[in-house]
């Protein structure tokens, strides 16, 4: 190859490389620009999973034996489980820490620290005989302690006797007021939600009326 040919090849190779570099650069820059989110702020963002209580700590069941500082319960998944109850365990039975005794036949929902095989729990919190009813008022009767309602629960259509007592908290314009200090104008057909304590006879003492 003579010198003239060599110069010709070198010059054209230079321009060729320059064109290729330019095209590739253009593609990369366009690709990067297109990848930037332009309206991500307008779209609802799925929040990260962050539960309040880990699943492995949750336990529920029915009390079948009461011992000193512990109870034995029947759980539908784990079978018999022993729950250790300490002075630090928060217990709701109609209200928080009202020292009502835990009795055989009570049901509960709660959580605590399980041992390795999940047969013993150091309980942190228990809510005992708590029910959540949503339904229509069938009848209302005034009694000495407050009101007795017949409530037809919305899911099953099952009827419940609900006692509204002087301590029942009633929602009144963005605040809750004990029934003793307010009026509750309930009549047949009204829809209500009630959080309450289920008694042994199947009736419910309302702690809150929504």
């Amino acid at each position: 190859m003579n010198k003239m040919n060599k110069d010709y090849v070198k010059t054209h190779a230079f321009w060729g490389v320059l064109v290729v570099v330019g095209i590739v650069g253009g593609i990369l820059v366009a690709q990067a620009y297109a990848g930037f989110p332009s309206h991500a702020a307008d779209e609802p963002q799925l929040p990260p999973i962050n539960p309040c209580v880990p699943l492995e700590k949750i336990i529920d069941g029915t009390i079948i034996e009461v011992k000193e500082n512990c109870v034995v319960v029947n759980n539908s998944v784990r079978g018999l489980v022993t729950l250790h109850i300490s002075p630090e365990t928060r217990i709701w039975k109609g209200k928080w820490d009202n020292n009502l005794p835990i009795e055989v036949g009570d049901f509960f929902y709660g959580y605590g620290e399980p041992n390795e095989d999940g047969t013993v729990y150091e309980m942190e919190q228990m809510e005992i005989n708590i029910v959540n009813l949503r339904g229509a008022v069938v009848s209302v009767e005034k009694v000495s302690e407050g009101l007795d309602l017949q409530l037809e629960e919305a899911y099953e259509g099952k009827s419940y006797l609900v006692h509204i007592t002087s301590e029942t908290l009633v929602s009144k314009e963005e605040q809750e007021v004990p029934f003793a200090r307010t009026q509750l104008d309930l009549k047949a057909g009204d829809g209500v939600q009630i959080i309450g304590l289920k008694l042994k006879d199947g009736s419910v003492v309302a702690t809150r009326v929504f």
Partner: protein
Amino acid sequence: MKKKAGFIFEAVVLLCLSFTLGAIFWWNIPKAEAAPHTVSYKKGHATWYNLCNGHNGACGDCDNNKMHAAWPHLPQTGCYRYCSDVGSLSCGSRVTVSDRCPGRFTAPVEIHDCCTCNGPGGCNGQSRCDGSIYNTGDVIIDLTSYAFLHLHGNLGDGRIPVTVYY
């Protein structure tokens, strides 16, 4: 010197032209339609219930001991029990529930039942956070007691403000 400057000028012009050519080429390549990235959501209230035994509910397999929930719009089961319009889901749909009380906990649940959300006491009620009234709204999802405890930490509030992503 003049010859060198002319060479550099020509090189820069060619580089710019080829750069532009590359960019135009990329923009004109037909691209596959991107999957939609949007998430639907609905704000409202969540309550809890414990009527599932593993073989019942509108979908036939609702379980109190799982992260199951009832949704008010499940056309495959004939369920249209919402106060105001919510998205239509099917049995087994996974949704993410975000508690709007302080702490803002979030948990995934699966839909396995029909919520009678528009029944008595469901629409236009008051939610609570740690015993204090939070806001007025409609129930849009009913969680099993297990799921409610996992998300909120207590059952006593009974009705909490949530955002459901689906």
